[in-house]
C-alpha cells in the first residue's frame, strides 16, 4: 500500500461520485467503473475536504485527525490514489 506526501494537494477525480453511508461512504468511478468503500466517517470528511485544503495534512487536521494517526490516513488516501479516485492538483 502506497502513501502520499503530506505536503501534496489532491482532489477527487471529476468522474468520481461519493455517497455517504452510515459506515462511511461508497465511491464510484464512472471512468474505471470501479467501486470503493470508505470504512470510516472521518476519512470521508478528509476526502471531502481535500480540494479546499492547501495540502493533505491540512485536510487531515481540519477533519480532526490526531497527529499520530495522520500517517494511517495518508496511507488510506494513497490507496485511493492507486485506484485513480484521487488526482493530484497544484498545491
Amino acid at each position, binding site marked *: 500500500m502506497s502513501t502520499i506526501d503530506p505536503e501534496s494537494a489532491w482532489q477527487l477525480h471529476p468522474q468520481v461520485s461519493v455517497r455517504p453511508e*452510515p*459506515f462511511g461512504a*461508497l465511491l464510484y468511478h464512472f471512468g474505471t*467503473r470501479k467501486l470503493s*468503500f470508505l470504512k470510516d466517517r472521518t476519512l470521508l470528511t478528509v476526502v471531502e475536504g481535500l480540494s479546499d485544503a492547501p495540502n493533505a495534512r491540512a485536510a487531515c487536521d481540519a477533519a480532526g485527525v490526531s497527529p499520530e494517526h495522520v500517517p494511517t490516513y495518508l496511507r*488510506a488516501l494513497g*490507496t485511493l490514489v492507486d485506484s485513480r479516485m484521487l488526482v493530484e492538483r497544484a498545491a
Partner: protein
Amino acid sequence: MTLLDTPARDIRPVTAPPPKAMRLVDHFELGLDAPICLTWELTYACNLSCVHCLSSSGRRDPRELSTEECKAVIDELERMQVFYVNIGGGEPTVRSDFWELLDYATAHHVGVKFSTNGIKITPEVAAKLAANDYVDVQISLDGATAEVNDFVRGPRSYETALRALQNLSDAGMRNFKISVVCTRQNIPQLDEFKAIADRYGAQLRLTRLRPSGRGADVWDELHPTQAQQRELYDWLVAHGEDVLTGDSFFHLSAYGQALPGLNLCGAGRVVCLIDPIGDVYACPFAIHEEFLAGNVRGEGGFRDVWQNSELFTRLREPQSGGACTSCQFFDTCKGGCMAAKFFTGLPLDGPDPECVQGYGEELLAGRKDKIEIPKHSGDHSHRTSPPRPRTGMGPVRVTLSRREDLQAPPVSACAEDPLAGFTAAAASDFATKE
C-alpha cells in the same frame, strides 16, 4: 449477490483508526439506504425468444411505464444517488424512447449499463455510445460458435451479436462486456469466449444459468454438470479479475478459495429489480409475487418501496442457514442463490440446487413427484413459444381448395348492400315451379 461487477481487488476497504469491528459485508446484509446498483427491465418486448430467458420476455406489456414515468424514476434514482442502473429486458433497445432515456439518465448522473442482443447496435449508434463515458454496453452471447449460441438464442443471433461487437470495436469503444450465461454446452468453450473478448477489446462476463422464467423449462437440460462446475471454478480462479461474474457464482466458493466479489446474496439489501410495469422485486431472478415488494407507481415511489417495504425489511434481518448451518462451508457460500432454490422447489433455508457438496442434488432427487414448483409471474413469451424446431424450418405446405358445405362467402354483419346474403336460386328451380 448479483449485478455487482466489482472484482475483489477493487473493493478496497480503506480503513483508518479506530478500526471498526463490523465488516462491510455485515453492513450490506443489513441493507443500504439506496441500492448500489439495480436492474431495470425497460420492456418485455424482444425480437428473440431465447429458451432460457429469465424474464420470460417476448411481447410488450401494455401497462409498460411511459417515457415520463421512466424519467420520474430516473429523477428519483438521482436523488437517492444510485450510481448506475443495469438496463435490460426484453430487448431494451426496441423501445422507441430508449436512446432518449439513456441520454436522460446519464445527464442526471445515473450511469447506464445496458444488456442487448446487439440488434440495434449499428455503426452510428456504436459511435454515439463510445462518446458517452457514462454508458457501458453488454452484448449477450451464449456460445462461442454459432452452433452453440443459436441453439439457445435462436437462428442468426450469433451473427447479430458479432456484428454489434465489431461495430463497437470499430467505434473505438473499449472494455464493453460480452455477457455469457454458462451452460452445459458452452462451458467447454471458456477459452474461446476469452479469445473473442480479447479480439474485440471487450471484457468477458460469465453468469449463472438460473431456473427463472423460461430458464425453468430448460434448466435440467442446460445447467452445468457437477464436473463442469469444478472446471468453471478452476477457470475463474485462474483468470481472477480479468473476468467479471456479477458475483453470480458465490455458491462455488465452497470449493475452496472465495471468488472475487462480495460473496453474498444482495437481494433487497444492495440490489433489486424494477420490471417494465414498475413492479419492484428483490432480485432480477425472482419475478414472482413472493418476492414482489411494491410498485414505483405507488405514492412513495421507488424510495418508499426500497426503504420501507415489508419484504425488504424481512430480507435485511439475519437469515437462518437452516439445514446448511452445520456445513463447514456455510460461511463462504451462505446457502447459495435464493431464486435458484425457489424455482426448483427447494426450501429457501436449505442448500442451493447446485451445491458443490452435492446436498442440492440429493434434495432434488428426493422431491415428491407431485411437488408444486412455483411458476414465474406474468409470462410474456411470444405466442409461438416454445418456438418452432430450433434448427430452422422447412417450407410450410398448404393446399387451397373450396369447402363443399359452403355455397357462398360468409356475409359480414356490417354489409350494407340490400342484396347482401341473397343468392339467386338456380335456374332449374324456376323450371320446376312452372
